């Protein structure tokens, strides 16, 4: 059974009085524990697709299933609860909370969502800090660390709730090439270690090569799919 299934999904935005068709009849299925990339130029619909999978937005037509649940019928509170349990997010601008330290930023989703005992919270956060190589920076604030370090923290924050899916919208866009590769590799390692499905969008052809499954989008349509996992078989 697929972890994510999109059935004939379209999304239209209203730009002033002009309707803009961002996605057109998308059908796709993503399995568990895969490392997936959406590639395409700006305006191709990558972010919209991630927003729909992440329950941040609703399709104009069609259905989005995550864990076999139609997420289009959720209200705001249900969406928030579902996101908190199932999905982690990594953003292009890192979006760390400036008043919280590295440690506290990673801990934040646990405080907001779960009522975990402090000991377990500490174990989870410390483990992830070690995994992303930020243990020594844990007391620093976001303005005291580099862009690459911020994104590592963001990856750890996305994983701290043990989500099944992590969605990363252009996670390397604000990073230099070497750092971008490091971040993608960390994400890949996490897929293997935690069994998390990582889906990231990018317009960088060099980075996209790291993904196992690559969906290429143009003008709101999937124009090609490359599945390295199946190719290897």
């Amino acid at each position, binding site marked *: 059974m697929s972890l994510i299934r999109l059935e004939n999904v379209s999304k239209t935005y209203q730009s002033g009085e002009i309707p803009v068709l961002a996605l057109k009849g998308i059908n796709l299925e993503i399995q568990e524990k895969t490392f997936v990339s959406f590639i395409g130029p700006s305006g191709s619909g990558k972010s919209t697709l991630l927003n729909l999978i*992440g329950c*941040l*937005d609703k399709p104009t037509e069609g259905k989005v299933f995550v864990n076999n649940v139609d997420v289009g019928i959720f209200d705001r*509170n249900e969406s*928030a609860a579902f996101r908190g349990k199932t999905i982690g997010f990594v*953003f292009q601008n890192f979006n760390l*909370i400036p008043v919280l330290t590295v440690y506290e930023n990673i801990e934040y989703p646990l405080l*907001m969502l779960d009522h975990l005992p402090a000991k377990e919270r500490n174990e989870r956060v410390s483990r992830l800090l070690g995994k992303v190589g930020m243990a020594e920076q844990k007391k620093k604030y976001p303005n005291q660390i580099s862009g690459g370090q911020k994104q590592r923290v963001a990856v750890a924050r996305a994983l701290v709730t043990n989500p099944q899916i992590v969605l990363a919208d252009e996670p390397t866009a604000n990073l230099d090439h070497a750092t971008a590769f490091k971040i993608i590799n960390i994400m890949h390692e996490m897929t293997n270690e935690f069994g998390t499905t990582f889906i990231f969008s990018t317009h960088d052809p060099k980075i996209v090569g790291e993904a196992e499954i690559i969906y290429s989008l143009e003008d709101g349509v999937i124009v090609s799919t490359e599945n390295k996992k199946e190719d290897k078989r």
Partner: protein
Amino acid sequence: MKNLIVIAFRNLFRNKRRTILTSSLIAFGVILVIVFGGLAISFKSQMVGILTNTAMGDLQIHSKGYVESIDNLPLNLTLSGSELASVEKKLKSIPEVEAYSPRIKFGAMISNYAQTSNVRMSAVYPKMENRTVPEFAKRIKGKISNPDEFIKPGEILVPENLMKGLSLKIGDEIVLVATNKDGSVNAVPLRISAMTENVFGPSGKEGYMHIEDAQSLLREDEPEIVEIAIHLQKYDQLSKVYTQLKKEASAPKSQIEVHTWEQLSPFASIARIVDLLILVVKFILISIVLVSILNIMTMSVYERISEIGTIAAIGTPPRRILSLFLIEGFAMGLLSTAAGILIGLGTLWIMNIIKIDFTFGMMNVSLAPSIPASEVIVVAVIVMIVSLFAGFQPAYKASKMEPVDALGHN
């Protein structure tokens, strides 16, 4: 909740200068209410104390229609013997009544044999008067060995201003001339035993004499009592006792009328203005808090739209986002109030040590301002409630933001 509070406090200090400025403004409002309230309440209670404990008593009973013509000091509107007995019986049956003092009030001429002036006289039984207006003895300038005998037959207490006006000294003899209710004029020589300090309002510039001398001067077979002043055990019993006596006075055959000091003294209007001013200052405080918190929280929400999108995206429920911003507004109110109360009470404490002396009317007043704890609590509660109220709209807006829109905001 603890975590939300910690985050809210940290958020407050992201922009330290703005937070400190806004907090200072709110704290200033709190200080204003506490200091002004402390001064005004102390002034009011001290003035009420002076009026009721040195001259008027808490309540007064007269013959019906007397107060309407009180300026003329009519001698034909007196309490008859049976009425006086009935009133005294009633007063003795009311446990809240600490003491009462029958008085004869009349207008007279005072002469030092060279000059003559008008004087309002109050003839009293000194022991009963001293029990009814226990602070009166403090207004007497001169040697008084026993406050219960502050006036003896043959003596007079002359108001300070008349002493100066007529160049009188303690020990001098004067002649008091008065017309009785039948129109016949009589005079009596009296020796000045002391002088009385002036007090604001009615009875404030009166001379005092023994009721026996007044009876003789006015050629009364029995003292014809014009006024009965009443002193209560506690000031807050005023309304209860007034209601009781008013009921008695409203009986069909009753010939008496009852008034509280507030109904007789012009200071009651000043006291009401003081209360109104305190209320105005509280409204100013509410406006300051409302505008300050609304402004800072609105700015805070607009500056953090992207962050709101992030916390919403990671699954923070809308009600938690609402709580986060509400706590921020509340925390600002709390911090400012705490600072304001501390500084305000400190200021009052310093004023208490220094003591503020001033003259009100012709009275010397030494003000030691203080504020009741209940007033401080009221101020704190007002600020807290207004902080929550003012922070609600921005917080609600934040909680209603669609994460996808908020994340796209730059």
